[in-house]
């Protein structure tokens, strides 16, 4: 890291999953929706919950808890669907809650430490420490990869 990039920062959406905070760059986020009816699609991976009608567009939904093999919890009032767009795909992620938008200075992002809980390290592109919060930055390509 040189001094030149010190001023740069990225805007991220912060969401909760189990007891950790994760972040996705705003540029990839199309919107955050409340939980709605999900139509199950048979014979797909377990973490694909199905599809929703997102204002006329049929959008697949992935449960991130199941994707990351975290303990499954019941959907609650705070549960949200974050709509991600990556390349030519639009996919919704089910998360425990999403309620924060933050600017992360580029220099606060570090490569992930050796051990970050149970989350498989291939999904992590880095971690950022802001105040006392630890944000895990997701590697979206890898999260969506196996189904491509």
């Amino acid at each position: 890291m040189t001094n030149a990039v010190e001023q740069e920062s990225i805007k991220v959406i912060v969401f909760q999953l189990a007891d950790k905070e994760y972040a996705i760059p705003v540029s990839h986020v199309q919107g955050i929706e409340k939980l709605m009816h999900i139509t199950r699609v048979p014979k797909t991976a377990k973490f694909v919950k199905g599809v929703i009608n997102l204002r006329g567009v049929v959008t697949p939904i992935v449960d991130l808890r199941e994707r990351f093999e975290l303990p499954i919890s019941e959907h609650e009032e705070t549960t949200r669907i974050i709509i991600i767009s990556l390349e030519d795909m639009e996919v919704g992620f089910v998360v425990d809650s999403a309620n924060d938008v933050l600017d992360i200075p580029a220099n606060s992002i570090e490569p992930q430490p050796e051990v970050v809980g149970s989350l498989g390290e291939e999904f992590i592109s880095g971690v950022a420490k802001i105040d006392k919060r630890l944000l895990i930055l997701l590697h979206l390509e890898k999260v969506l990869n196996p189904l491509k």
Partner: protein
Amino acid sequence: MEVNQYLEMFIEESKDHLQACSEHLLELEKNPDDLAIVGEIFRSAHTLKGMSATMGFEDLADLTHKMENVLDAIRNEKIHVTPEILDVVFESVDHLEEMVMDIANGGDGKRDVSSTVAQLKRIELGEYAIPEVVATTETPVIAVASVLEYDSFEQTVITQSVEQGFNAFEISVRLREDCLLKAARVFMVFEALEKDGDVIKSNPSVEKLEDEQFDQQFYVAFVTKESAEDIQKKIMKVSEVEEVVVATIETTVTAVASVLEYDSFEETVIAQSAEQGFNAFEISVRLREDCLLKAARVFMVFEILEKDGDVIKSNPSVDKLEDEQFDQQFYVAFVTKESAEDMQKKIMKVSEVEEVIVATIEEKQFSEKEQAIQEVTATATIEPEAKPATAPENTTPAPKPAKAAAPAKADKSHAPVGNKTIRVNIERLDILMNLFEELVIDRGRLQSISTEVNHGELNETVERMSRVMGDLQTIILTMRMVPVETVFNRFPKMIRQLSRDLNKKINLEIIGAETELDRTVIDEIGDPLVHLIRNSVDHGIENPTARLAKGKPEEGTVVLRAYHSGNYVFIEIEDDGAGINREKVLAKAISKGIVTQEQSYSMSDKQINELILASGFSTADVISDVSGRGVGLDVVKTTIESLGGNISIESTQDVGSIFSIQLPLTLSIISVMLVEIEKEIYAIPLSSIIETSIIRSSEIMNAHNQKVIDFRGKVVPLVFLEEIFEVPRKEPQVDEFHSVVIVRKGEKLAGLVVDSFIGQQEIVLKSLGNYLTNIFAISGATILGNGKVALIVDCNALIK
């Protein structure tokens, strides 16, 4: 010049013209003495040349020009049509097609055609030594008068200038064929002129000239103090000007014969109407001097006219007429089924009309005009090789072919009667379709709301809206429909070429070319058909000796047939060739590991036939250039299935084969039956459904671990969607009755077991996106009236 906006139109029209060329060439091959056909080809080629030159595709224009020369020589009976000549012309058309395709794909249309060009030249020169100058040496009267048309204002200007000692000239300027910057040359000519006098009028209009919307020649009316000779010399100084003719305008000219001047489009309209049995009239109407509301009278006249036919042109223009910018008289070109007499009487009924003269427009008139121009050109020019092809844009064929043209064109089966069409960008139709799809979803929602609310007036309104939307849907869908002819019409030429390459005699019959299909399907179906036809010709039809030995006629027949049936369009390719050698196919399939020896025993003839569609299959012993180039028929199968279609083969050895393709009429809105399993709703396309039925548990039988039922004497396997789709069920269903949807794939049936039927509905097909692909037995999704997503069952995947 901004060409991009015209490029698309240019490509479309070029394709049309090239298609017309090929069709007529094939006709010409059958009747080599029919010069009317040559005239048709010439006309298409000529237009194409003009268009491509305007668009700056020099190679294209050049080759067309060479081809046109040959055609012209044929037309003037200087060369006789021989198969060799036709081969060369066909080759040129092929080249032209390639060029146009190249342009369409973003290329520059350049292509090495030197050998074809050389051949064309040889034909053109080889058969007749001296290119005759068409025009006679008679001194022409100043027939130039018919080139430019002056309205009363312009006439006054001319008369006044002449009175004031100016000379009024009509100048015809021809640029060199290879002129690159036509607009620039025009500008220079105008600049030269405007130094010495005033330009009163030009034909084509200045705007068109600036846009290069002209061939090589344009006409200018000009008043000046200079002499004709000086003016001519001055203009000749502009480079790339080939010829300048300056003629004096006689002020006494009362242009009665040439009251109306027609551009090529109008000429075509008139000529076509005449072919379709309409009369084309030039009507001159004079109002009374004391007429007060001239515009109103004009309006009444037009109203009468438009009841009985179409007004093609008026002089002064309609705008001017409405603004009363005319004296007492106006002229109208008009096509109708009525007689001249009737029209005259009808118009005379309008009050304050003093005189009505109805004259028939004869096609001859155009050609005469054309000839007149040619004469002028020929006499005034210094160069001896004035070619008739340099006559102004889009001339109708010379009188001789024109006469013979009538019967030839009359048997064109698809001549639309008075059809008015516009070209619409397919993207706009797609947008329209998308918007309509949104409406269909909302309609579904409204319908479910109105059923819940059960309010009389609401129900009524929703019902009426649904009906109107049904009609709207039909219209939108038919708007996207294109006759399969657009695909079929390339095949005659292909068959001709193939039969030459393979030394086989083949007759192609096309049936049902008017059958319509969705544009999207049309775009996709071309290549598979080419493949299948090549296959039939190469592997199906035997060579003449083999055919004779089998007691068949020497000439093989390939029938290309299209027809509607239900929600599908069927396209069949039938040949009376060798048929499929099933033993050979089986042996090959087994050797390639496509099927096993054991499997082969239980296979039906049809299944064996269809093995040739399996990937990695080619039965021709010798790999020929025509088919079997590594891409097998499996590609055909995949393409057709991706369109939601199906292909099946029937074949009898030594009798022939039929390849039958089934295609959906449209791809985006389909009728489905909604069914429920536990709480999940699935949609089954109505087109796959034969019927629904309720069966008792006791009717279910077991055969080889497969549950089957006896359905109208047939053993039909049952497919429990609940199992296939792994529907989570809290408690197992115990019901004596089962709801079964009987679906089919080709001739095979299956019974889909569901919990209950919900009903029939029109739905909009939506894709599941790029994340979820290749989901077993699901072909897509749709949004229901309640806003939820329902999945569409792919019955083809469920029937093995």
